[in-house]
């Protein structure tokens, strides 16, 4: 049975790591994502006590107006047509986080995806949210993925799915080899991305989905992907590693 994700769930956020995870933690000890210091435990945030201060949580964001909502999911803007039921961001796209995402995307440090994905899951579950039925990610175009060798959002989403102990599934393909969203303006972005995704999977009716991407700026990509999924009967929640707050200010 699906419980609505929106309802608060009592219970602790601590997740007992599996035996396999504990063994791998022995062999490849977890490090603080910010400073690289070895952590003594692989449960919880992948940060050392010294770096906890440097972490600025973003929390829920209104997918409509981009306002920071903290632990609330409803925004004052009362948008009607919500493709995304709620959107959660782990942190902001600056300083350490920006460095981490750059390392992952452009320097091929794939080992960063797993702790980031787990961390995302950890923070979401700490907000008292119930687990989604499925986890999926915003796809890259085939050509781009081949170029990079991987899709960082998929790697992150797989880790989040593993944390929630829910399946990960590819549900979308990107059919349009779009210009990079980072190089164009807010309005152009929406045009650029329109019709870029095709549905290519199967969903149980009324499933709640967690759609994951690495960075959320104007939300065009995320919303376009969510729209496709919603058309196919899913309730879509979004989660990203970093919220690029700056773009909202400059463009809005």
């Amino acid at each position, binding site marked *: 049975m699906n419980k609505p994700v929106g309802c608060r769930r009592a219970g602790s956020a601590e997740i007992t790591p599996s035996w396999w995870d504990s063994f791998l933690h022995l*062999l*490849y000890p977890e490090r603080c994502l910010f400073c690289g*210091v070895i952590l*003594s435990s692989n449960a919880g945030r992948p940060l050392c006590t010294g770096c906890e201060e440097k972490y600025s949580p973003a929390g829920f964001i209104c997918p409509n107006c981009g306002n920071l909502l903290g632990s609330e999911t409803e925004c004052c803007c009362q948008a009607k047509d919500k493709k995304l039921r709620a959107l959660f961001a782990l942190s902001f796209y600056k300083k350490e986080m920006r460095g981490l995402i750059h390392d992952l995307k452009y320097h091929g440090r794939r080992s960063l995806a797993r702790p980031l994905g787990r961390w995302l899951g950890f923070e979401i579950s700490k907000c008292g949210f119930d687990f989604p039925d499925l986890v999926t990610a915003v796809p890259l175009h085939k050509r781009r993925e081949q170029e990079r060798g991987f899709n960082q959002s998929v790697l992150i989403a797989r880790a989040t799915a593993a944390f929630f102990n829910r399946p990960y599934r590819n549900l979308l393909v990107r059919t349009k080899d779009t210009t990079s969203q980072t190089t164009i303006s807010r309005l152009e972005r929406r045009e650029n991305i329109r019709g870029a995704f095709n549905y290519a999977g199967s969903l149980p009716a009324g499933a709640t989905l967690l759609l994951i991407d690495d960075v959320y700026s104007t939300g065009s990509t995320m919303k376009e992907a969510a729209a496709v999924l919603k058309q196919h009967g899913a309730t879509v929640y979004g989660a990203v590693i970093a919220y690029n707050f700056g773009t909202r200010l400059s463009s809005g």
Partner: protein
Amino acid sequence: MLKTLNDNIKGRYLVAITILYIIGIAAGRICLEEPAFIYFYAALLLFSLVPALVFRLLDVGEVLILLAVLIAGGMAYAASVRPPDNLAPFIGFPVYVEGTVADEPLFYEDHVDYRLKIDHIETREGRFPVEGTLLVKVYDDELNSYWFGERLRLRGVIVKPQGRRNPGGFNYSFYLRSTGIDALIYPRSLQVDSLGPGESGCLQSTVIKIRRDMSTAISSTLPSPTAELLTAVLFGRRQQLPGDVETNFRQAGVGHLMAVSGLHVGLVAALVLGMGRMIGLRGRLPLLLSITIVFAYAALTGMRPSALRAALMVACALGALLLERERDLPTAIAFAALVTLFINPLLLFDPGFQFSYVATLAIVYISPLLKKLLAFVGVPSFLGSIMAVTIAAQIGVLPLSVYHFHHLPGGALFFNLLLLPLMAMLVGLGLTGALAYLLFPPAGELLLWATRPLLEIMLFITRLSAVPGLYRAVYPPGAVKLVLFYTVLVAGLIIYYRIALAGDLEDGLPVLTRLFSFVQKGPADSQRFFLLSTFLALATVVVLMQGFYSLQGPYLTVTFLDVGQGAAAQLETADGTVVMVDAGGDPAYLGDPGAVGEKIVLPFLRYKGTHLIDLAVITHPHEDHYGGFLPIVETIPVDTVLVSPQAGDSTFYSELLARASSEGALVLSASAGQIWHCGPDLRLEFLSPSETNLFRGTSSDLNNNSLVFRLCFGEISLLFTGDIEDPAVEKLLSQEVDLKADLLVVPHHGGYLENMPRLLERVQPQVAVIQVGANQFGHPHSFILDSITGAGVELFRTDLEGAVILETDGLEMRIRSYETKAASGF
């Protein structure tokens, strides 16, 4: 302690577990050999664990894990050091054994070694199933050789390998145990029959076949000795390598190039990954392939510790890519060590294991520091990194080299800098060449030919190591000093990294403040520091007590060395006076009477730290008594040499005396009636022969004219008798001299002596020592043995018990045999 030993261990549980496991193994060995230390270790544990629990630095669970790992280490050692019991009843008798050849035979110049996994032993009483591994040494094997997997039936006597026979000597038994061998057997080739092929692991036989094919490819393409050198470099097998090449490499300090290690394995992994990419493999496949091939290569080289370490570490690194985890070098090193020592805990004491890990650790922790230093003084960076790695490895390894081999390769740095870059090319070309040869011979031949100039350059360069003075024999540090050196090194590095790390956080603090700031950072930190210092203080106390334990007590130590057939005794007083009475020696007809001196007596003297021999007594001019002095007078200064008035009949003897005088020794002849004082406490009273009345016309004048003397120290006296026979004994007994002694050195290696009972009666010894080894003269004679036991005198024999050690303070004496004390030797 698990969490708090230092930052390097914090969170790296595998490192902590490995360190504890290693301590457990070492403590297991110490406690097995010196049970008294169990109490020290128990106290040490108690004193460090109680505060840890009180300060809540560890919880009960952690303490239990810690103890469990420690105990596991000790138990693992104890379990693997003992040979299996089921062979014990068959040792020493001629038996038939049946088994399967478990490895490729090793061909040496004069013999072949087979590793035989035996399953049955047949005696007159019947056929018994057994389990064990024998090292079969066939010395006259010219006709047959048997291959891996062949079943053999052979007749011979199962022999227990010798342990450490003399202090500072080589422990053959322990070495063989660490390679999984339980006992030896020496059949003649005619006594070995093949029973046809037996069962053998398919994997192992494939590996052996590939190795053999590759070696054949190499030897059919390259001329000797370059072929043998390439085989040694690629597979770590140096049995076929000409002795002088190996000596040159060792003396140059680049012997490690012939041990397959990180360089080789890393290169193999890189080659496989590169080729995988070239043929278009993507994703996880090339990684998995690479891991498999790396282990296959380690198997090709016989899974020696260095190869296994490299393979495990490379697998760890590739596994990190495979599993998308962040790799961690210290953990990878610990993982490799833990796996290796889990398979075989005895390898902890294997020099190859120690060299490999110490060098790796030194490269990881010391070379970054040196690199900075070299960059600071303006060394260009490409040269700087090679130099930093080489120097770091040498800093780590040289003390070990001195400890194990008593030699200092002075040019090690120079030769390593020159040869390491060549090695990378050589291994790459050689491996691809040998492999290509198996698929397409002409291509392989071409690649192998290309290695020839590299090999010739290596041979030429290592020949330079013969430059006099570069490679020197040195006095080895004791185990305590060695441990102390590494403790200081590690402490220095910890402090350095503490400061370097603190530097990132709080810039601008002067170094000293930084050094102390970590002490005062907060309650938790200061507790940790307190715990750490308590632990270190206690550890120091244990080490000191260990030292004190060995220092206190005897003022005179007499060591009757096991030199095989022959006699050698070393006496050392607390003030450092050293007397040698004979020094063993090999029969002159073998060409080198000094070989035993080089192999046994000199290492012993270096181990003892003997820089000067105050008095050398040569009882008589037979090579089994003087031969060992030949290499000694060339290396260690001798103050005085006392010889018998009897002239020798060998040129070796006259050469020895001439050499001794030319090296500055005073060579004098002693005779009955003389008293020689050596230092304040030692007195030698000479009793025979009489200078004016030497024995003439006896069965052996040389023997009968042996110097006989009573050596007195306080109230304890020892009677040294050389090789005197009945005429000389009779004359001694007829004289009104004091022959009473607490210890009698039985004349002539226990050869027949009619007057033995009378001699015992006059001397009234508590203890008799027979210096004897394997011989064809029937020494010691049963009559002598019976007389000694009949007289109620305690008997020690160097052939059965290894070195015999007497310790005395001048009033009481303690005597023990070396091997029983150190049953497995340290």
